[in-house]
């Protein structure tokens, strides 16, 4: 079954003091995952951002698997990030655009991860800027058919976030599905779906928002 999962974190909205407390981060990271932070290249990334990076990878993995197993519950510590490779010479930069879209992650300095939960193994690509973290998960290392986008929005109220996220995704999908009248909806368990008049289209989509940011992924 085709699926996708993504997540976005606004780093301006996180509670830095709380994130650095062991009581907090130990509910997200296992001791083994904390050791990943000791890689020399992570010196460029503050610890609190590392914690939220792993959160975003795990939440993306959860969304990927929830489409396949609707009864799945998100407990971050049960998702295990086994590997996290940061590009050599990685430097944290500002997110200069108002929106950024891509297909795959071949020409962009993404952090690549491997996640397991039970018998499932998934792969992630994450982008980190000073203002945000975005992650996208797939069931193999090849992301060349995975489309993704990040956009700044004006307000952070949940209804506006939801509307803007769907609008942003619909604009990109239009390029692929222009021969259909479609709407983006959510099924009974909250999984986003793309519907045409007589049923669901075979495209897996994922939406996320946090504060003044929205993001999508699909394939």
């Amino acid at each position, binding site marked *: 079954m085709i699926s996708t999962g993504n997540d976005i974190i606004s780093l301006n909205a996180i509670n830095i003091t709380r994130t650095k407390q062991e009581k*907090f981060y130990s509910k997200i990271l296992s001791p083994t995952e904390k050791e990943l932070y000791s890689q020399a290249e992570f010196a460029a990334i503050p610890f609190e951002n590392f914690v939220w990076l792993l*959160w975003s990878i795990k939440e993306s993995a959860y969304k990927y698997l929830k489409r396949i197993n609707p009864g799945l519950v*998100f*407990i971050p510590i*049960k998702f295990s990030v086994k590997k996290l490779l940061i590009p050599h010479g990685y430097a944290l930069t500002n997110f200069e655009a108002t929106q950024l879209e891509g297909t795959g992650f071949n020409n962009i300095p993404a952090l690549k991860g491997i996640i397991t939960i039970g018998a499932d193994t998934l792969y992630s690509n994450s982008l980190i800027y000073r203002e945000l973290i975005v992650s996208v998960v797939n069931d193999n290392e090849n992301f060349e058919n995975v489309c993704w986008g990040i956009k700044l929005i004006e307000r952070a*109220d949940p209804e506006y976030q939801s509307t803007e996220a769907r609008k942003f995704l619909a604009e990109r999908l239009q390029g692929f599905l222009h021969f259909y009248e479609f709407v983006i909806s959510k099924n009974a368990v*909250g999984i986003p779906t793309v519907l045409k008049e007589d049923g669901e289209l075979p495209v897996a989509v994922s939406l996320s928002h*946090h504060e003044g940011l929205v993001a999508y992924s699909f394939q």
Partner: protein
Amino acid sequence: MTRTEILNELKKVFAPYTTNKEMLAGINDQTDLIKDLKINSANLVDIIIDAEAKYDIEIDYDSADKIINVGTCIDVIMEKLNQNK
């Protein structure tokens, strides 16, 4: 401590993480934290830690697994309070 007392205290725990104040005022066992209160999933760990501090309990991940709505949240808190007796 009764379920009603815990429910009323949970309103204060949830308050910083929801903008849906009308829904918060009328929460019941079936109120879903994410779908109804529009609490961002990134704040669920905050809520667990705030509840742990408020009731001097520890919510392990197997218990956190059960927290989906207000009712299951109260169940977990009552279970942990009883274990502390």
